[in-house]
């Protein structure tokens, strides 16, 4: 079973995302900020990361930069999931190694489409 780390400081968003991704066949782990997510990845690289942008302690984009510098950190497919929906943010995410980008608000159909585009399903 593929694993997906859901990184968001909102418990509600994590819960919604978990439900959608479990339906897509993923095993879910959760982290509430970038630093916690990085600790998870250092212990065991997931197949996918669903990643919020604005979070306390460490932001999504800083997490992504750290992740891609880790040994094996190029492997997880990273899908941003954020309210930062302008072209500049999207381009920055892609330049830092994001594979896909979900603009909030999202639903199950969008997540399924984006995970397919990212080569995860």
């Amino acid at each position, binding site marked *: 079973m593929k694993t997906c780390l859901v990184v968001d400081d909102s418990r509600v968003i994590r819960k919604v995302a978990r439900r959608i991704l479990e339906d897509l066949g993923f095993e879910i782990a959760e982290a509430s900020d970038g630093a916690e997510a990085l600790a998870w990845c250092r212990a065991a690289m997931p197949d996918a990361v669903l990643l919020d942008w604005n979070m306390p302690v460490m932001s999504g984009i800083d997490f992504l930069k750290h992740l891609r510098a880790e040994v094996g950190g190029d492997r997880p497919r990273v899908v941003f999931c954020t309210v930062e*929906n*302008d*072209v500049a943010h*999207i*381009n920055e995410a*892609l330049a830092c190694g994001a594979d*896909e*980008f*979900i*603009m909030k608000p*999202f639903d199950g*159909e*969008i997540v399924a*489409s*984006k995970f*397919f*585009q990212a080569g995860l399903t």
Partner: protein
Amino acid sequence: MKRDDAELVAHLCEARAGLKVDPDKIYLLESRLAPVARRDGFGSIEEMLVALRTRREERMIWAVVEAMTMGETSFFRDQAPFDHFRDVLLTQLAANSEGRPIRIWSAACGSGQEIYSLAMAVEEQRAQLGGVRVDLFASDLNERALEKAQSGLYTQFEVQRGLHVRRLVQHFEKVDEMWRLSPRIRQMVRWRRTNLVSDLSTLGRFDVIFCRYLLSSLVEPMRKRVIENLALLLEPNGVIYLGVGERLAEATPALRAVVGCDGLFRPDPAYRVAA
């Protein structure tokens, strides 16, 4: 909405466009027709249909029929047919074009996602086409769908269905809460209102026709007629893409399924001679 009103609408849809409309699906009928009634200044769907019965105005009849045509759509729907189109078919057609432009038609284009996906695919493959011109045509029965398609404006929800984010930032710009396709891609497409059950002979011949997930929305006799009409517009080496799993074309001798490509069909040469 009353039963005889629903039956009137279903009857008009079938008579004018071969559309299969279930008069029992009152909710669907009401959700489609309420905006039409509002737009034309009627207090309710019932009032609009009373006026339609008495005046029998063509414009009003078509507004009702067209409102029932909108189907589901998304960019690069099912992905595989578009990959095949871009990576296999386009280069084949270009190699055999003998200087003639490649003509592509999205029949029943709805709000434009299909033809624009094809336009983006053409653009991405441009360097491999040896300068061969590609003409893209799109048609739909629904005038409002065509207007929306031509605007190239899509909601955040629409651009997140089927479209990779790299294509989004490459081809779209954000305009307030909407996303607008670049003029470069929009200008590749020519548009036209077309009823697929009527005479199509003025459209010319095509190398590629996309007519996906339309047939199942038509009444049985019209499916065969539409598919045979389309088959006659194909160049001898042309292809037609139906929806994945749409087996309907096998009911006609006009087309032969291409083995290994779900939904892809070629014209049967014997049928063309007979027709």
